[in-house]
């Protein structure tokens, strides 16, 4: 049954990948290929779209794969059901695991073990955010740079305009209006408009 296997495969992906949507990507690609759900090229094309549409990356991918798979055999309602199964599958493990961990942490909040664990884990988590910042910064400003050891890398795609835009948003995000900083969602909306103007209308 196609809907059950959509649910089950995405449940496994949700259960076994740690570190967010991008960590899931190779796994989803393999499953999609192994199960014969869609052409690899269709999938790769969609990854670009999933990155540039709102919402968690992993959810976008699960919905798309579910939709495509169900639609091919059962039409529109099959597509929607497939999307529901895949999304539910990818979300369910997080839901259960987080609730379990939260209950444990709250109960043992003052134990030396939990405190000591967080004492070491927190700075590492901050380090991962810092490295995520450097990665997204490079992919916006110089998309061809790859920092992973031993991978090909070049500064050819470097763009002064993107760098300027980043600097502009850094400044804008610090400005306070009525003692409040501009809401991040406002910044995103503004950045889409500026993007269309700079790269679409003026084709910089």
């Amino acid at each position, binding site marked *: 049954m196609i809907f059950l296997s959509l649910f089950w495969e995405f449940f496994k992906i*949700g*259960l076994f990948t*740690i*570190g*967010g*949507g991008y960590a899931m990507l190779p796994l989803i690609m393999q499953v999609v290929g192994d199960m014969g759900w869609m052409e690899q090229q269709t999938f790769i*094309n969609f990854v670009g*779209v999933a990155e*540039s549409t709102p*919402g*968690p*990356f*992993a959810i976008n991918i699960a*919905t*798309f794969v579910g939709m495509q798979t169900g639609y091919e055999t059962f039409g529109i309602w099959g597509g929607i059901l497939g*999307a529901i199964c895949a999304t539910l599958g990818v*979300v369910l*493990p*997080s839901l259960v*695991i*987080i*609730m379990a*961990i*939260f209950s444990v*942490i709250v109960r043992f909040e003052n134990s*030396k073990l939990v405190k*000591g664990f*967080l*004492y*070491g*884990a*927190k700075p*590492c*988590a*901050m*380090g*991962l*955010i*810092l*490295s995520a*910042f450097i*990665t*997204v910064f490079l992919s*916006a400003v110089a998309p061809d740079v790859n*920092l*992973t*050891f031993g991978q090909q890398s070049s500064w050819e795609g470097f763009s002064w305009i993107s760098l300027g*835009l*980043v600097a502009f948003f850094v400044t804008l*995000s610090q400005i306070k209006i009525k003692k409040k900083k501009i809401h991040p*969602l406002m910044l*995103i*909306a503004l*950045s*889409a*408009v500026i*993007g*269309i103007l700079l*790269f*679409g209308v003026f084709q910089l």
Partner: protein
Amino acid sequence: MKTKLWDLFITFFKIGLFTFGGGYAMLSVIERETVQKHQWLTTNDMMSLVVIAESTPGPIAVNAATYVGFKQRGVLGAIVSTFALVLPSFVIISCLYFVIDALIGNRWFDAAFKGISCCVVVLVLNAFIKLAFNEKQDWFGWLAMICATIVSLFTEFSVVLVILIGATIGLIIYLVRDKNSLPLSKKEDEQ
């Protein structure tokens, strides 16, 4: 006062609808909404959330929604928040499915995304600054942070292992200090 399920729904629906660029960019929006606006979390809670979200399976944003929902309203809250976070993606992708070929390589779509990706950089940076400079870190904190950054930037080492190794070393240092009753642990006991 009990948090209304409706408030959880609206907040995470908004986060799901307007956030681009995956979990790390969402942290900035989640911080603004849950710490500053609704005060469901303290900045310290937010840091625990990041640790848990990063070191457990599943999308980071889903983990965060579940955590906040569960903290405020138990199992029902967790389900409502997660559902609300996922709903916009689900609807948008289902609709886009039929026009996807028109979107791939579309000039306007690409231009908007290029602008957004410059903004996402700033959101991730702000999330980092807000969280990392929230508490005073000692030498071990800074060292662990720099090591974790370097390892995850330049190698393909698993994220969980980075956090687990850091946590283990931290735990040992913490317990040793605690045994010798250095000022750090004494102060925390008094609180």
